């Protein structure tokens, strides 16, 4: 700032009275350019904000788990660990253009395994509430969460 002022003074001294107005206009133009660049940067920042997390999606994921568990398919899917079957079953129930991640935990919240479909991103995902799944073959129940991302 000080150096700019000095240069303006130098300009003023060097070209006399006539140039004072010109240097003032020049300063105004620079100020305008700075404001416009700032506003443009802000607008691009606002436009590129990540989409807000949808509360409804997490609830929908819980319904999907309830439906899968209704005929004992969820326990079979988890024990089978078959990604193709998973893709066929869960992938069909998830809305178009969305991806999902199924996480299976032990009753002590240790991650046993997880399966994520292509394009899944935790940054804009909503997860179901933990769902307790028990099966005949395994005495310990599993905790399952299903996360859906846009």
């Amino acid at each position, binding site marked *: 700032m000080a150096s700019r002022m000095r240069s303006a003074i130098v300009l003023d001294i060097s070209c006399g009275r006539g140039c004072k107005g010109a240097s003032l*206009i020049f300063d*105004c133009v620079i100020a305008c350019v700075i404001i416009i660049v700032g506003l*443009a940067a802000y*607008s691009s920042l606002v436009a590129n904000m990540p989409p*807000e997390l949808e509360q409804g999606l997490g609830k929908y994921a819980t319904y999907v788990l309830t439906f*899968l568990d209704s*005929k004992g398919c969820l326990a079979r899917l988890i024990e089978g660990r078959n990604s193709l079957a998973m893709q066929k079953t869960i992938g*069909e*129930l998830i*809305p178009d253009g969305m991806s999902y991640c199924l996480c299976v935990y032990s009753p002590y919240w240790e991650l046993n395994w997880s399966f994520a479909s292509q394009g899944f991103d935790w940054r804009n995902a909503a997860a179901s509430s933990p769902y307790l799944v028990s099966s005949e073959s395994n005495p310990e129940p599993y905790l399952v969460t299903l996360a859906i991302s846009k």
Partner: protein
Amino acid sequence: MDQAFEAAIAFAIFVAAFSASQYTAITVYESSLKGLYEPKLESAACIVASEILLQNGKSSEKWSSWEPICQPGNYFSPHSGVELEIKATCYSIDPSGAVTKLWIKHGPPLAPLGRHAQKYVSGAVLDDGTFVRLEVYAKDG
């Protein structure tokens, strides 16, 4: 230089800078206004989905005889400037884990909604063990 001529140049620069800054400010304003309208549209979609779920409940008969209505006036008011699109899909699952699509009901809007429409997804497990996925899209008309 003539003073009047200098003033005219200064004015021209002022007009150029002023219009450029106004143009940028209006662009910023429009993008922020879009952010202000988004919660309203998402809420509208949520209201529509909840009312449909409330009407049909868990009854599979009600769901199979139900037809989607895309007039927002049927769900909430004031409804000016909101366009809706409703899509419901029913699935059944057999013990082997195979999912079959039983039916799709689609209520298209008067004009196709772009990808900027707000979406709300909900689901319900019906009394006969089938599952309905309800997707509602709302857009500023």
